[in-house]
């Protein structure tokens, strides 16, 4: 029992985090929007060179052969940076799915090398980044189909988060497009990594709020010296502190695929969503009217959090999973860990 990242994990996370924070700045985000870019090619090249898209792919496919726990804090850092590129969806969702296929038709290696694979799972009404995907994994009943971009018709659906590139995908399944009979744990991995991003987003909102509260004076002193402002931000930080370990635990347990493991991912999604929501709204209150403007960076993170809260299963759906876990399986202090319940 060791609930801490290994040194290796810390090293790779720190490197990825440093790279993301250095290359992905709010100023850069604004520039991408002005130039209507979906992807920063230089950053994506760096991400790919670091091997991040293939972290969870087996070494045979050119990946690093690592597990969910190795990538979870990188997903958190991607949220913290407000990363617009679909690294988390590619490395955390598409790659593990491709790795489960009997025949991935070569796409696992291509994904691990940074080619974007869009994932159209029934949990989400639209497909993100479908317009920049080299291939699309789409659902037909329970089946997974693999489509080439030429074989689908895309209709853009504007999101409040301009970096969320949502599309309705019209396509026709055929025997030749079918690649798998089921999605496995795709929905749970989607929820888990959305949760990780939300932890990062929430923490970023708090950090922005704290910086502003130190700087902004009203009634002759920094607003951060008022108890009301302090307590707003402190309460949000408490929410983050008790959501983050759930996310990390869910990453460590999900591969067990049991109900306790799936309930943990559900819990992670609920808790991270609430924490990010509270953090974003608390920071907004600290920023005051400035926070409502396009000029201040807060909205990039607030809007991403809003969208991710409902992506990969609503809070209501995930609550249902938790409720069925606690009413059908043992609870209590010796029933905390999924691995122990699986014995």
């Amino acid at each position, binding site marked *: 029992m060791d609930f801490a990242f290994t040194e290796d994990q810390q090293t790779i996370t720190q490197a990825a985090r440093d790279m993301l924070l250095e290359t992905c700045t709010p100023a850069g985000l604004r520039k991408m929007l002005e130039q209507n870019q979906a992807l920063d090619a230089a950053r994506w090249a760096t991400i790919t060179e670091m091997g991040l898209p293939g972290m969870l792919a087996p070494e045979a496919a050119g990946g690093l052969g690592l597990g969910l726990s190795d990538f979870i804090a990188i997903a958190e850092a991607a949220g913290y940076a407000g990363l617009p590129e679909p690294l988390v969806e590619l490395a955390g969702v598409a790659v593990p799915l491709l790795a489960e296929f009997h025949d991935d038709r070569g796409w696992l290696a291509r994904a691990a090398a940074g080619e974007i694979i869009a994932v159209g799972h029934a*949990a*989400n*009404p*639209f497909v993100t980044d479908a317009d920049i995907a080299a291939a699309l994994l789409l659902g037909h009943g329970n089946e997974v189909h693999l489509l080439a971009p030429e074989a689908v018709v895309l*209709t*853009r*659906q*504007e*999101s*409040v*988060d301009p970096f*969320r590139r*949502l599309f*309705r995908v019209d396509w026709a399944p055929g025997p030749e497009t079918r690649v798998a009979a089921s999605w496995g744990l795709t929905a749970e991995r989607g929820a888990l990594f959305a949760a990780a991003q939300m932890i990062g987003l929430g923490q970023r909102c708090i950090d922005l709020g704290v910086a502003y509260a130190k700087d902004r*004076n*009203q*009634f002759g002193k920094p*607003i951060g010296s*008022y108890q*009301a*402002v302090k307590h707003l931000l402190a309460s949000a930080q408490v929410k983050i502190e008790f959501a983050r370990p759930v996310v990390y635990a869910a990453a460590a347990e999900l591969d067990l695929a049991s109900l306790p493991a799936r309930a943990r991912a559900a819990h992670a999604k609920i808790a991270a969503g609430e924490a990010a929501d509270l953090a974003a*709204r608390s920071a*907004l*209150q600290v920023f*005051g*009217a400035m*926070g*409502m*403007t*396009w*000029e201040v960076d*807060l*909205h990039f993170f*607030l*809007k991403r959090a*809003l*969208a991710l809260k*409902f*992506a990969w299963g*609503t*809070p*209501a759906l995930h*609550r*249902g999973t938790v409720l069925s876990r606690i009413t059908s399986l043992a609870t209590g202090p010796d029933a905390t860990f999924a691995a122990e319940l699986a014995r």
Partner: protein
Amino acid sequence: MKLEYTDEQRAFRAEVRKWMAENVPAEPLASFDLTREGFEAHRLWERKLNDGRWGMVTWPEALGGRNLDLIRWLIFEEEYYRAGAPTRVNQNGIFLLGPTMMEFGTEEQKSRFLPRMAAGEDIWAQAWSEPGAGSDLAGVSATATLDGDHYILNGQKIWSSRAVFADWAFGLFRAPGSERHKGMSLVLFPLDAPGVTRRPIARMDGELVFAEIFLDDVRVPVANRLGDEGQGWNVCMATAGFERGLLLRSPARYQVAASKLVALYEAHKQDLPASMGERVAQNWMDAEAYALAIYAMCSRLNAGGKIGPESSTNKIFWSEMDIAMTQTALEILGPRAELMPQAPDAGDVGDWLEDYIFALAGPIYAGSNEIQRNIIAERMLGLPRG
């Protein structure tokens, strides 16, 4: 205590309803913030209201009003929102400056400004906040320097809704060298005066709903000062009372939203957990509670009472209710909540997302909720000042 309308009140409601049915535009008007055309369409609507003597029903008849009591004002508002009539482009004028001017203005000011305000000939913007003075309004630094029978205005104002296309603004300025609550005056100035520059500010969703006003040696006659020299703070606080207390936040608005929320829930309930019904019920109860509290307040005001610090309780309640209500709607919409209304598959998402973003500003503007809680604690409960 009689919670039943009189026959006269019912007849009044029928009259409003009939007029609205005949006059409210079938299609929503274009935004008054984005284009001059949209703004002018709203001005025309103000004129049409005024022509029907519906511009401001509580105003005196001589000013085109109907001199109605607050219960009838509530009935009017209920029918106004029920009919889905356009947002009042001149709300800063008719709801805030108008009542303030009736209380503090000279006869000359009243006759110069109020009829034009009522008729939509002058659309007003508010110019209170400054980049360095938000919650701490006494921190404003824009100056009004006396120069003979004129003031020379200098400084920067922010969060002036409507200011991009409006005709006039009322703002808080201070005598050079004065400090905090002293030495301030409320001054009215035309937005097309030489030295005035206006710049729209984009909201987080890209909508242009605020503006900045830069004042560079803007000359206005001293006769444009509302209230006495140096009394600007008191005049401004009276206006703020109108803002957070009552006039800008008639309960009908939230009751219409609650009805829409019930309909949204009904349309989706087969896919929702049972608890969503309880949330919707809570939102509806809040809207009802707000309406009842305002009816009680209006009954008291009709009997000669005054609005006191309870306007701060109103502000906290409506702002938190508005967030809770729009949040429920987003929860019901689930993964479609993030869609902009123009998305091809937006379906019935409607304006809930924009309403939510607007609601997020509620605890901030018109005196942040932190300030309102201080007011309640100190003035209603009598706790000592910090």
